[in-house]
Each structure stands twice: as structure tokens, then as C-alpha cells.
């Protein structure tokens, strides 16, 4: 689910950057560092605007300037039960690896409908029901997130397509 979240970040700046362009430096840096970041809990999709950059503070020892920036960002936090569209990145006998945006979702064999079978002899290998449903690398899938496991700087999720209206698009 997407949220608009207000967060703060501290950026320190070498004195050589002090000058009229400080703000640009900070914005660039903020965008570079924050957008696409995964906290283990959510993904930062986009930094919307900066609420407050605040006054810089010069650190006594190094002379670096330290700015505490408040900004708003669109974040995506995947939830259990959420239905997302994803792209298949690889198919293996154990299941299907997909990417729903930045989130890697694994669909285990158990969570694939029993009529969609592993077909290793085709090129590339695929899961198929020998009908119109073919799942191979690059296929778009609609899946439901079953569980989300936060990690230090990543989120792992498992999903299912064993429900109505789920499966290849």
C-alpha cells in the first residue's frame, strides 16, 4: 500500500560545498539517497517535497555542515494479503520468482494452482496448464502477497496465484 510519509534525514556537507548552491546539493543528495531505498519495512518510491531543510550546523571537529531535512515521500509498504502485479524474473522447479516493482516475490510450488504444471522441456522453461496460461520469464502475473519478511535492507515476500483472478495477465 502506498503512503505519503514525512521523514527526516541528516545530510552532512563538506565545507567546500557551502555557497549559494547548498540547497541544490542537498536536494540532489536527498533524492539520490532516498528514492528507491528499502528500509526493510517499506520502499521509498519518490521524494515529494522538502518540508524543511533547517539551518545547517557546523560540526566542530570536521567543519562539515550538518543539515536535518524534513521531507515527504511516497512510500510503498507491502502487506500480507495485498494483491499486486509482478513480472516473472525466473521460473524454477521450486517456484516462480517475480518482481513487483522493487519487491521480490516468490511463489512456491504449493501456491501455484495444481493445473499449472512445471514444464522444463520448453525453451525457456515454463509453468503452464497447456492452455492459455503460460508463465515464463517476463510474464506479467497478478499475485497476492502471502507473507512479508523484513530484512536489514531488503524485503522478501512470498505470494500465491492459487486463487480466483490471480495468475498470468
Amino acid at each position, binding site marked *: 500500500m502506498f503512503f505519503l510519509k514525512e521523514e527526516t534525514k541528516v*545530510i*552532512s*556537507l*563538506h565545507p*567546500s*560545498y557551502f555557497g549559494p548552491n547548498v540547497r541544490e*546539493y542537498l536536494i*540532489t*543528495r536527498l533524492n*539520490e*539517497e532516498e528514492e*528507491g531505498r528499502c528500509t526493510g519495512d517499506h520502499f521509498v518510491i519518490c521524494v515529494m517535497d522538502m518540508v524543511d531543510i533547517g539551518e545547517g550546523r557546523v560540526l566542530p571537529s570536521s567543519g*562539515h555542515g550538518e543539515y536535518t531535512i524534513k521531507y515527504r515521500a511516497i512510500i510503498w509498504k507491502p502487506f*500480507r494479503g495485498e494483491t499486486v502485479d509482478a513480472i516473472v*524474473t*525466473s521460473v*524454477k*522447479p*521450486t*517456484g516462480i*520468482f517475480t518482481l513487483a516493482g522493487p519487491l*521480490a516475490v*516468490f511463489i*512456491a*510450488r*504449493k*501456491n501455484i494452482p495444481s493445473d499449472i504444471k512445471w514444464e522444463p522441456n520448453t525453451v525457456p522453461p515454463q509453468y503452464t496448464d497447456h492452455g492459455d496460461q503460460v508463465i515464463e520469464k517476463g510474464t506479467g502475473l497478478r499475485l497476492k*502477497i*502471502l*507473507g*512479508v*519478511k*523484513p*530484512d*536489514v*535492507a531488503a524485503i*522478501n515476500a*512470498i505470494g*500465491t496465484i492459487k486463487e480466483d483472478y490471480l495468475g498470468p495477465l
Partner: protein
Amino acid sequence: MSHSLLDQDFGSDEEEEDFNPAPAEESDDENAGRAKASNRDYDDEEDDEEDTDVKAGRPAHRRGSEDDVRNRDEDDVEDAEPAAHDDEGTHEEGAEEEEGEEEDEDEDDDNDDDDEDAVSGRPRKRRRRGGVANFFEEEAGVDEDEDEAEDEEDELAELGGEMHPDDMDALPVGAETDDRRHRQLDRQRELEASMDAEKQAQLLKERYGRNRAAATDAVVVPKRLLLPSVEDPSIWGVRCKPGKEREVVFAIQKRIEERPPGSRNPIKIISAFERGGAMAGYIYIEARRQADVLEALQDMSNVYPRSKVILVPVREMPDLLRVQKSEELNPGGWVRIKRGKYQGDLAQIEEVETNGLAVTVRLVPRLDYGLNEDTAAPLVDPKRKRPGVNPAVARPPQRLFSEAEAKKKHGKYLSATSRLGPKSWNYLGETYIDGFLIKDMKVQHLVTKSVNPRLEEVTMFARGSEDGTANLDLASLAETLKNSTAEESYLPGDPVEVYRGEQQGLVGRTSSTRGDIVTVQVTQGDLAGQLIDAPVKTLRKRFREGDHVKVIGGSRYQDELGMVVQVKDDNVTLLSDMSMQEITVFSKDLRLSAETGVDGKLGMFDVHDLVQLDASTVACVVKVDRESLRVLDQNGSIRTVLPTQVASKITPRRDAVATDRNGAEIRHGDTVREGYGDQRSGVILHIHRSFLFLHNKAQAENSGIIVVRTTNVVTVSAKGGRSNGPDLTKLNPAVMRNAVPGGGSSMAPPKFMGRDRMIGKTVMVRKGPFKGLVGIVKDASDQQARVELHSKNKLVTIPKEILVVKDPVTGATVDMSRGKGGQRVPYGGSSGAPQSGWQGGRTPMAVGDSSRTPAWGMSSSARTPAWGGVGGSRTPAWKNDGSRTSNPYDGNRTAYGGGLGSRTPAWNAGARTPYDSGSGSSGFDAFAAGSRTPAWNSGNRTPAWSAGATASNGSKDSGNYDAPTPGGNYSAPTPGAYASAPTPGVSAPTPGAWPDSAPTPGAFNAPTPGGPSKRPYDAPTPAAWDGGNRPYDAPTPAMGGTAATPGAGPYGDGDDGGPRYEEGTPSP
């Protein structure tokens, strides 16, 4: 074990002729119950006892000539010999024997008394006479064997009316006619008895607690009143050899037979029993006095009455005799075999005998079908156990029975049995059905508790189902497991649901556990928030799909972490984090896991750790088993090693750097792909020398670990998309860039780059208070140096200009300029190795460089002295060079050499260009900055640089040269530079520019390989050197021609400075 006197007696009374001796086992079973004071027993036999007691009384009273004296007498006997009575009860054999005797007596009725003795031939029989005769004897006061006499009397009494005439003869005259008096006496006694009932009861109660039953008749007595009191005989626990308890009890029984009560030396214990498994190593003896116990056990093997004898507190007596309800076995349940060939094997219960003592089990047979039979082996008694052969160790693997196999060699032992239902085979005396061994076993040979069948074991049983489908009865399996569910498998906070019983459907979290009862805090429904107790059996853990769980035991997947993908009743399928494989386990073996990342650990080792196996082998841990590690070594082979075989764990170096096949830098965390082969890709976990350990989540085998060579990978993406913007915590590059446009007017290059070369040098103070003292420079600024004096062990600050650098070994003064020049080279040379941190994974490159580097380093240093020595001579050479150096770069560089700034760039890779320009500005603006830049890029300049640097050394610009040295290293690849060196034109300005410094670079340039190869003046150069008194100068040109490599030597020599270099020079 102990039957009370009364029991026994009356039993025989009742049953008389058709007396059926109780089977030994049954009586064994009764042991605890039968022992006096057992409540349960009491209930069972209440009726009996009433009867018997009544009878007990009556016959006695009926005895014709009995009088009060006799009665008292009898009582006394009973008092004196309680053990005797018990004795009889305790031992079946005794009982049987007695029965036998009784039968004899029946015969006696028909035969003569005298005959009887002869028939029985036992000493005891001595006193056995015809019933009535016996009676009289007793009356005469023979009371040795009172109880037996009693028996007989009882019998006699029963038989009274039908006495044989012969027996009648034995009666005293008038006995028959005395009948009236007898009856009178009986009546009188009955009256007394009825009046004295209370008193009598009291008496009996004192002696035998359970006899109260007789007194209270049909009234139900509360059980607690039946508990033993202090007046009852005590029970002593005596140590014995564990496992021999039963044997000891039998030995006691035997001894009692030998020394029955009433014999000269009677055993005076009341009962003896053992409690088997729970109290192994003890037998319990009931007796009045401890001395009796000791006496009874004297000289008996396997029992140790001399060690501490425990008096069982009255309070604990009931516990001691409590019969534990034996495990209820149900067909379909699982058990394990305790010993023998199938020791430890899982078996399924087929049938349970009604007595609950024997069961029929189904086993997966372990047969070798005679394949390993040694036909030539001498016949040995099969019963005798051969020493050293443990049947449980050397045994064939579990396999279903195959008649084909059996027919091969053991056809004669095989026979098909026709039976209803499935076909069965008889092989070597055992029955096989559907491939399984069907075996009758005693319960005591089975493990019925904590069986913990593992799924893989159980599947063997499922395989044999008739229709070929695996109809594994998971329900019954779960049932068995449930029984073994230890309370620790439920921890407070575990989500559970009640799946059967009254509370079915309840969902909650456990809040506490007491034995088999779990308190559940309900979280859903109407009862939410309430605490409810539920038995463990009705509970199961509750997981949802997507839960992150850990396997906690009872399964071979112990410690796996994973996410639940399917929940079906008790079976939970989870997807292992590590192997991406599906695992099915019971929910009781799972627990919610808050851990992320790491799975099992084995000591210090963890999955994905890099370990050193031996000096040349490293490996990455791909799986941690309970006792071993599976590792993938650098050669790509998988091995299983023990933790002890691992030399050490390599702490990961996060900053390690390597280059891929395109020369791009790769670091830990980058994603790379194989260039050749399978094109596998993965994230770099470890960089070790030229090997990369990658992790690819999509790969199932080896936990996704791949090992590749650095030369075989291409970068796919850098870690987290390394920010390509400026690093805001470093100096703003724009500031430096800004300097460029300024041209000549921009700032002068900084004087110092890198650490002061003085640091670490041995110096002598030239003047001042410390004059003549030698020390080591610890720290230096541009003016001052802090010197640690050898003599004073003290740091003093001394102006640099009054310091003289000394050679620490020879003590010779090292010319500062020369020293610097020389210094540089070693510095450069040595820097390659120690600075690996800085150079990172590129170390090999450094090595490569050094091979090149020497060329210039050497040339420069070598030349430097020469040059210094013969300035003039060289100059022309230089000029030659200059002329050659049509290449503006060269020229430029030369200029740099002259200008200190030129060096700087060498240091700061990025920054160089501007510096150059800066330096150039000093007089070389003519060399367009731009022109130089390319030179930089090519990296070729370096030689030129170093040359320049050296030159400048010659010109005595101090300190500054160091900087260039490293530059030299980098530029090592320079050969190109040489080529470019010849470029014309540039040199022309150069000379003009520097009157002083100009020559220096020139000199250097000349030797540079590129130059020499084409230039005739190369020849002159050496000549110039020759002039400089150097024999080796001649080689220099050669050097130019050849790879500079040999120069490496001087680097190694390092610190010595000038002289060594000179040596090096010839080496090319």
C-alpha cells in the same frame, strides 16, 4: 506379591478340589495391589474376604474338641508369625504345593494315614495325617505349623459329615457322639464372636489393615481410612543390583520356602516387592523390624542390605504401591523396539492382545536373505551370543520383504501361508505380509513413550499400502506425536487453537503450561480475553500462511527458518529461507521466528561464512548441519567438513575490491554475471584473491552460492546503485575544477603531498643543544620535525634544516636530495605491498605495476646520481631528449618534473589535470593543459614524471618528489608514453622554459625505452653517464630497450637509497 494368609487360606477353602493355581504372571500383576493396605485390592476382593472370613471363623469353631485354649493358641500363632502367612501368599509355588498337599489329603481320605507320609515323602508331611487325627495332634499342643494345620482343619471341617470310616477310627472314642457338644460349643462361640465382633475387628485391624473389611461387612469404607498408619508394619527399601530386582524377590521367595514360618529359623518378613523401572535398584520389604529384613537378606546375592536401608515414610507407602496405569496402546499407533535386531526401529501396532501385555507389530524387516551367511562357519549354538557382535549394529538395512530375494538362497525356509486377505509369507519362522514383518512382541520390549516417529520413517510404512497409494495415516501419526508432546513445546505466547473437545475452535495464545494442561488466553470470539485451560492433546499450534517460522526440533529440519506457504491441519509446509525448498513439518515443531536472515549456526560458523580449509583453500559455508558443515570451496566442489577441520573463519573484508574482466571495479555487494559458461549471476558475498563467492537467491542448490573467478565476470550493477553524484562529505571537486580556467594565475600547487618523507628517517642534529645526537623523525611539519633521540628517548622538536639524514645501517650521511630520490623508489616499491588496503583488490595490479615501475624508478634513481654528478654532460642528452620529445605531453611532463605541481596530479587521480596545468603554468603554459590531460589518461606520462621528479631532485627541490613516486607507480603501464616521448616540438620550449630544471627531465627522457628505441642519442646518453664515471650507465639504454622490469630489484632493496639504485641500474 504378597497374598495375605487369609486370602490364601480361604481361597483354597472355597475352591477346594478344583483349585486352580493362579498363573504366575497374574499374580505378579497383582503384586502391588495385593500387598497389604492397598485400597484398590480391597475393593476388588471385599466380597471374597467377607466370605472367607466368615468361613474362617466357623470351621475353627466347629472343631469338635476345640476349646478356648486352642483358640487363644491360634491367635498367638497368628501374632507370632504373620510372615508365615504372607509367605504362603507371596509365593505361587508355595500355594501350589499346598494345593497339592490338599489333594493328597483328599486322597488320604481314602487311604491310610501312614501311607500318606510315604507318598508325599516330604518332611512337612510328617505332620500330615488324616484330618481328624491331625486335629487331635494339634490339640495335643503341636503348633509348629499352625497355619497348615489350620488348613487341614478347615478342610476337615468342611468334609466333616462325610468322613471316611477309617478316619473315624482315628477319632477318640466317643468323638461321633460328642457331636452335640461340638455344636454347643460352636453356638457358644458364635455368640461370643458376634458379641466380640468389634473387639475382634480391632484386633484384626491392628494386624492386617484390610481385614477391616470383614468387620465392616458390606459398608463401604472410605479409602483414606485404609491407608497405612504407623502401627502397620514398615516398608524398607533395600539397594540391589539394578535390573536384578525381580530376581532378588524370587530369591527371597525361595528362601521363605526353605525357611517357612514355624521352621527353626523362619524368615520374618511380611512381603517383598519391587517397583521396576521407576525405582530400579531397590527392592522393598515389608517387615516389623529392620533386623528381620537384614536377616532375611543375609548372604543373598545382588542385594545389599548392608548399605543404607531406607525406611519408607508412612505417608509415601501408598505411592509406593500405586499402580501406574500402563500406556494404552491402540492399533495404528507407533512404538519402537527396545532391543534385538530391530532395536530402535519404528513399528506400527497391528493388534493389541486383550490382556494388554502382548501386541502384534508391523515392522520394516531387516533381512539379508542369507546372502552374508557363512556356510562354512562352524555350527555354533545359535542361542549363545557371540561376543562383540551387536545385532543392532551389524544389521541389514530396512527393506520391505521380497519373496524373490528370499527364494534365491533361502527357498527352503520360505512358505506361503494361505490366509484370508493379503498374501502372507512365512520365512525363517516369521510372518511377512505386504512386505512387512508381522511380529508378536511383549509390551515390555517396546518403547511406547516418546516414540517421536519421524516423517521419513513413517513414510516407509505408507509405501506398502495395497493400491500403491501412500495413504499415510497422518492423523494417527499426529496422535502418537501428540502423546509425546512435551510441555516445553508450548511456550507462553504461542498462537494455538483447540481443535477438538468442548472448546473446539477456540483460538488464543498460550499463557502458561502446567504438565499437560495449557492455559490459553482466548483472542477471538465471545470469550476473547478469558483464560481457559485446555489439555495439550486438544491443542495445536496455529500458523498462518506467510508467517515466518523456525523449526524447533523433532524433525531433521531443525533450526530451518522459513515462511509458511500452506497449512493443512497439523501439517505446515514452509519455504526455507536458505534453500528455497518446501518443507513439511508438524505444527508442533514450529515456532514463530522473529529472527531474520541467519539460519542455523554451528558454533562460530554460519551459512555464507568464508572459511579457510587449508593454506590454499577457502570455502563458503552453504549449509550448517547439526554437526557438520557443507562448504563450497574455491574450486567449485562441495564438501562436508567438521568444524574441527576448518582452519579458521575469514572475517569478511567489506572494502575488498577486485576488477572484473573489463577492468571495472567490483566490490562486495555488487551484482555480477559470469562472462562465459552458464552466465550465472549473483551478488558478491566474498572476494577472496581472484575468486568471487556469489549468492543467487533463485538458485536452489548450494543455498544459492556460486564460486567464480574475477576474470570471468562482468558487472551487472553496483551495490545499491552507487551514487554517482559528488560525495558531499569530501572536498567539492568543483572547487578544484574552478582552478583550471584560471590558467597561470591559479594557485600554486601545494607543496606537500602525502606524508613527509622525513618521517621515520634516522637523522643527526647538526647544531644546537642536541648537536651530534641521532634520532628518528616521528613527525614533521614543513619546518620542524619531532625527533625521538636515540640517546635520550625523548621527543624534541628541531628545525628541519639542522637535521641530516643518516643511513640507519651504515651511518653514512644521506644526501637529502639523493636520499629523497632514492627514497622514493623504495617507497613506491614498498608502497605497493603494504598499501594494499589502499589499492585494495588490485594488489596484483600493483605487482604488475612494479614490474614496470622499476623501469622508471630505476632509471630515474639510477640516473639521478649520475646526473647529479655530471650535470653538464647530461644536459645535452637531455636536449636530445627534448628534441625527441616532440610529444607535447612529454614536454609537459618534463615541465611538471620541474614544477613540483606536476607531481601532485599523480597522487590525486582526478585532480591531477588541474594541477598539471597549475604546474605547467609555472612556465609551461605553452603546453596546453589539454594536451597534458590525455597524457595522463594514457598513463604513459609516468615515466616522464618520475624522470621529472628525479630531475627535480637533482635540482634539490626537496620533499616534493615523493608525490610523484606513487604517480610513477600508477603510470607504470607507461610504455605508451615512451612511444609518445619522441613527439617533437614540445621539447623545444621546454629548455627555454627551464634553464635549470630543463636538463633533468631531458636526461631522464632519454633513457626512457620509447626514446632509445628510435633515437640515436640514446647512445649519447649512456655516454654522458659514462662521463659521469658510471660503468653501468652503458646498460641504461639497454634498459630503455628492455622492459624496465629488472629494476624491481632496486625496489626491493628499498631504503638504502642511492647506491643500491645504482646497482639496480646495471641490472637491466
